[in-house]
């Protein structure tokens, strides 16, 4: 609150000029944070919430007396809270329009009362109490907060606080102080994040310049500066070195520079420019004009620098090119490509010149740069507006974000000077020259000569690019000479294994030229062409290019062949080879979602299905690879099933080829989400080969695929039975330790499915599986946690297992996963808790022993995720069976929170919500409370749901609620009787009884009423 708020507010008020918070998005998000903090404060920190402020927070409110409910003492003059401080002053007092608040609990209440005006209230409060922390905690504590290093020694602070004030109150005060400080930090980091995207910080430029200035600090006569250093060695992730609270003011870093002729300079670098500051720890004080860069500042303050810097400009010019590539490392792929291209173009120019000169020398190269003043070259002139490298907006591609195997740009290793260039470089340069000037015969001979180099070696690959060979090779593809095209592609398909070459090809539009040859009548050419595409299309932009230029259709056409004839003619064999290369290309392309769809639309699924009949592994691997890649899309999964490919996939599981087996298992993994597919896998006897793949534990990728397939297949109980014949569970349980996470996720998933069968629960116990599972509960992988909690929950349905889980403290671990930020983990953990609570021996005691557990679970009723809500309701229903715990739940406001949810239309949530309501009725005046809160009417409506499970729990809840006469009246008014009478005819005894019981209660009330009337 202190730092961030006052600073952030200053920062914006300066812009607006008035003493109000400007309606900027950043302020709004700050307000929201603060509001959220205040709202939750009294429930999360009840003790601190009661602490009385040193001074009341006072502001003019829009609230009026009538807004306050009956818990306040309302008189004509004012509104007072019944709670008073030890001097007898009310903690909340309203003299319209001024309101005084003296504690956080009152603040929370007030904010709740304000309802839709709560933002305005918070804003007004902050505007009129410019230093809320001082008012809350008193000036002494707040001054500590103001110390900029305060957060580094929080512990010593606690001690200080203790000395100042005695007793419990001071303890609470310090805690509150720490809480406020946390909020402060949170707000600051939020501000910074927002600013990062908006304001033009450019730490990179500063860094580059400092690096260069450091070169001036050499010893000897030529030295221009004595020393250049930063005041801090720590670099934040955004590249700044200034502490966060100063970054808010757009400051990047501070420098101490010792020039040769003047005194030491203390310099502040900010996005707005560079200026001299007041010295260490007084960085904010500006003591000079603002300069556009450090160089300009130095030139104006140090004549020695100004004189000598110019002379050395040339040397500074020769920054190694790597510096530039480093600069772009973290940038998005597209951006990278472009930057790299410009980089390349520069290089090309160099080579162009080198060629003309035959003997390139450095002096010549240097001339080229002469006109640019050095500082401009480094991009320092623009004071702001440049976004820092790290925050370039995320890509705007239409492609899926789940791109697998996206390759990362590696910084290039490049020889530093000409002398380091290998002899291959010069030979290749000569040959590329022949390519440019030769006729067809010479071209073919030259291409063959280039092929004799080791084209898989990076030196040769980059040499070809660097001497301009790529352009020539690509140009050859646009000619009519088949031999030349073939030769060119034979080189391209090899060098395109290199990331930089791929990008260069795409950058120069080479992919389009390559794709033109896919229609060629010459089969060798088509095959080479497709193979080259397979290599080039390893990154997103290339894949998109293939699609946009109609490459997918052409590639799918290549697949047209009959692969499984007994005797192939030479021509047919060539067709098969073309199809194989085409599939390789499609495999690369299929890593983009849009391409998957394009392949499907072009009829690729049928073609792939036909190729799947091939007997050759080198054909099957790309085919199955493509299929499993595409099986992430539902349309493919359906097609794979309906085109009868499951049979072939299963068949190939048994081939002795790890890669093929892996792809087959992966395909089954993805497809077996579908019930029919699971049936087919069993039908074609695919379960046994899957289990036998588990023996190949050394190949983790294969193991992950196989366990994944087993997991998904085991969703069908019949499959689990079958798996048991092959002792699958025992093998899986052995894989619960010492495996990579991607294997563990699947193994645990499978164990969770196996545990649905009672016999298996004992097996899991006997093999020590419970302990392994509980151990995994402490992990961080969310997918794994979802599966582990599910498996633990399934195991907990066995009493003996539950004893072990309890002994290993598993319930506490599961419970603490409710705090996980991932909704899937939360709900999965809550479902597991249901099982644990139901099957634990002394569940009530167990639950109570978890400090803060009940509060945590009640608070999750504020979640926005229906699955989480449903699971939490189910857990609450289980917990509420214990009266003492129900009492605690009630204290935490479970009735109100449940009631708030009753308007849902989600049947799954409705079912468990009704169950929870039914069970929560059993305490105190909860029945009446539900009625008062308005839970009854929506519940009556649930009876019209189409889900039978909802009817049952609803009828039971209504039966409970109907024991309160007022609720009966509400129910009757809402027409509950008719649907209940219908349900009284149900086959389900519990539903029937609950419905009947409810109707009976309504009847009894009516009778009583009549009697009362009669005897009145």
């Amino acid at each position: 609150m202190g730092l961030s708020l006052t600073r952030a507010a200053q920062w914006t008020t300066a812009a607006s000029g008035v003493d109000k918070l400007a309606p900027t998005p950043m302020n709004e998000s700050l307000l929201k944070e603060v509001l959220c903090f205040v709202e939750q404060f009294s429930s999360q920190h009840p003790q601190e919430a009661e602490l009385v402020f040193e001074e009341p927070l006072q502001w003019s409110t829009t609230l009026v007396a009538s807004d306050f409910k009956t818990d306040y003492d309302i008189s004509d003059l004012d509104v007072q809270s019944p709670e008073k401080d030890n001097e007898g002053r009310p903690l909340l007092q309203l003299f319209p329009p001024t309101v005084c608040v003296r504690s956080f609990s009152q603040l929370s209440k007030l904010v709740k009362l304000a309802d839709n005006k709560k933002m305005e209230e918070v804003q007004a409060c902050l505007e009129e109490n410019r230093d809320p922390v001082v008012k809350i905690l008193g000036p002494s504590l707040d001054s500590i907060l103001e110390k900029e290093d305060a957060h580094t020694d929080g512990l010593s602070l606690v001690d200080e606080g203790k000395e100042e004030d005695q007793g419990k109150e001071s303890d609470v005060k310090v805690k509150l102080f720490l809480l406020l400080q946390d909020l402060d930090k949170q707000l600051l980091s939020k501000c910074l994040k927002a600013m990062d995207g908006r304001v033009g910080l450019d730490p990179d430029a500063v860094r580059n310049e400092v690096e260069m200035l450091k070169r001036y600090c050499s010893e000897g006569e030529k030295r221009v500066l004595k020393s250049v250093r930063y005041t801090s060695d720590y670099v934040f992730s955004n590249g700044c070195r200034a502490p966060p609270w100063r970054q808010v003011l757009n400051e990047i870093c501070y420098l101490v520079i010792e020039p040769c002729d003047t005194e030491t300079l203390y310099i502040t670098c900010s996005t707005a420019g560079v200026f001299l500051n007041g010295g260490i720890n007084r960085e904010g004080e500006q003591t000079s004009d603002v300069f556009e860069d450090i160089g300009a500042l130095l030139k104006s303050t140090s004549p020695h620098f100004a004189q000598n810097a110019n002379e050395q400009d040339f040397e500074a010019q020769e920054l190694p090119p790597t510096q530039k590539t480093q600069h772009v490392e973290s940038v998005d792929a597209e951006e990278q490509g472009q930057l790299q291209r410009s980089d390349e173009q520069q290089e090309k120019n160099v080579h162009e010149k080198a060629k003309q000169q035959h003997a390139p020398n450095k002096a010549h190269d240097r001339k080229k740069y002469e006109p640019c003043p050095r500082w401009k070259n480094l991009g320092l002139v623009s004071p702001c507006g440049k976004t820092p490298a790290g925050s370039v907006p995320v890509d705007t591609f239409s492609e899926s974000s789940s791109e697998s195997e996206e390759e990362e740009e590696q910084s290039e290793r490049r020889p530093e000077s000409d002398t380091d260039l290998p002899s291959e470089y010069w030979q290749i340069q000569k040959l590329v020259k022949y390519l440019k000037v030769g006729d067809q015969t010479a071209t073919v001979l030259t291409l063959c000569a280039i092929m004799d180099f080791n084209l898989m070696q990076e030196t040769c690959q980059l040499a070809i690019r660097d001497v301009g060979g790529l352009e020539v090779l690509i140009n050859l593809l646009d000619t009519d000479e088949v031999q030349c095209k073939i030769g060119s592609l034979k080189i391209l398909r090899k060098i395109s294994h290199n990331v930089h070459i791929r990008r260069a090809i795409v950058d120069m539009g080479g992919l389009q030229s390559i794709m033109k040859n896919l229609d060629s009548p010459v089969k060798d050419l088509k095959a080479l062409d497709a193979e080259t595409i397979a290599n080039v299309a390893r990154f997103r932009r290339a894949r998109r290019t293939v699609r946009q230029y109609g490459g997918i259709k052409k590639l799918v056409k290549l697949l047209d062949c009959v692969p499984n004839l007994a005797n192939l003619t030479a021509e047919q064999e060539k067709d098969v080879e073309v199809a194989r290369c085409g599939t390789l290309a499609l495999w690369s392309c299929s890593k983009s979602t849009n391409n998957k769809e394009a392949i499907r639309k072009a009829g690729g699924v049928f073609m792939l299905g036909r190729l799947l009949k091939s007997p050759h592994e080198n054909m099957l691997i790309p085919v199955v690879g493509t299929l499993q890649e595409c099986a992430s899309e539902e349309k493919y999964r359906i097609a794979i099933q309906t085109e009868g490919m499951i049979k072939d996939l299963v068949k190939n599981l048994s081939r002795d080829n790890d890669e093929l087996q892996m792809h087959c298992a992966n395909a089954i993994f993805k497809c077996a989400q579908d019930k029919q597919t699971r049936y087919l896998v069993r039908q074609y006897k695919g379960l046994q080969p899957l289990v036998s793949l588990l023996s190949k534990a050394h190949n983790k990728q294969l193991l992950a695929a196989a366990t994944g397939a087993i997991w998904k297949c085991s969703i069908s109980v019949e499959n689990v039975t079958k798996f048991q014949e092959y002792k699958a569970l025992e093998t899986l349980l052995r894989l619960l330790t010492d495996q990579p996470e991607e294997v563990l996720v699947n193994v645990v998933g499978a164990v969770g499915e196996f545990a649905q069968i009672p016999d298996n629960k004992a097996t899991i116990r006997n093999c020590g599986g419970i302990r392994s599972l509980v151990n995994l509960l402490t992990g961080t992988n969310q997918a794994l946690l979802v599966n582990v909690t599910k498996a633990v929950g399934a195991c907990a349905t066995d009493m003996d297992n539950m004893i072990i889980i309890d002994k290993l403290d598993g319930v506490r671990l599961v419970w603490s996963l409710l705090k996980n930020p991932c909704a899937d983990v939360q709900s999965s953990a809550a479902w597991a808790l249901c099982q644990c609570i139901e099957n634990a021996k002394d569940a009530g005691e167990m639950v109570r022993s978890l400090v803060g557990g009940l509060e945590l679970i009640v608070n999750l009723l504020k979640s926005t995720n229906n699955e989480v809500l449903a699971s939490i309701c189910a857990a609450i229903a289980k917990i509420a069976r214990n009266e003492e715990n129900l009492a605690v739940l009630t204290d935490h406001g479970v009735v109100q929170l449940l009631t708030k949810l009753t308007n849902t239309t989600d049947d799954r949530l409705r079912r468990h919500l009704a169950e929870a309501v039914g069970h929560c009725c059993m305490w105190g005046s909860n029945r009446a409370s539900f009625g008062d809160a308005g839970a009854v009417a929506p519940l009556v409506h649930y009876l019209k749901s189409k889900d039978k499970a909802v009817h049952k729990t609803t009828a039971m809840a209504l039966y409970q609620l109907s024991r309160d006469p007022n609720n009966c009246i509400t129910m009757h008014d809402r027409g509950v009787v008719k649907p209940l009478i219908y349900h009284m005819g149900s086959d389900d005894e519990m539903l029937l009884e609950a419905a009947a019981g409810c109707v009976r209660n309504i009847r009894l009330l009516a009778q009583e009423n009549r009697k009362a009337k009669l005897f009145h």
Partner: protein
Amino acid sequence: MSNMSAMKKRLIKTLAESISGQVELFNTAEVECLIRDYNERLGEPTSPGKGAPGLDRVKFRSILQNTFGISDDIMMDRVFRKFDKDNDSSVSTKEWIEGLSIFLRGSLDDKIKFCFRVYDLNDDTLVSMEEMYHMLKNCLPGLPTKEERDEGVKDLVEITFKKMDRDHDGRLSFSDFEQSVKEENLLLEAFGTCLPNFKRVEAFEQRVFRELQK
């Protein structure tokens, strides 16, 4: 007149039958088409009984250039010599069809043999470096000066010779050539274009055999 043409037809038929007996790659009907095409190319109708003079060097070269896209002087001359098996300076019907069988339907082995014989300028069953240099001397037309061109060609010849001389005996024998080409098919026409390309073959077959395709 109709009598004449009927007689001619019969003659062509007998000739076709006899030739197709010797050339495996074409059937009789195809040979018939080829003969008719040959006669058309020859221009003047050949009267029966008289010995046909056949295609002379000039006519042959123009066919090579226009129909088969072979335009290098040395190559055209060498191909003519290889078609003209009896060395009578004219390509007879039979020689023409035999040659075409390699052009149009030849297997890789046939083509390797044919190309090697074309490149073996002095028919001594070896391709020497000098022969190579002679065939390739104009292959780098883009270089500005004659010195550079000569230098480049020499370099290219050396690279290629080193590459193809499998047994390192300093001579390029047929088996050297054959091995090299089998390993890298692109080397088939290493020293000059002496075979029609795919497109030309296709166009030629389509035109000459169009009646058969109906």
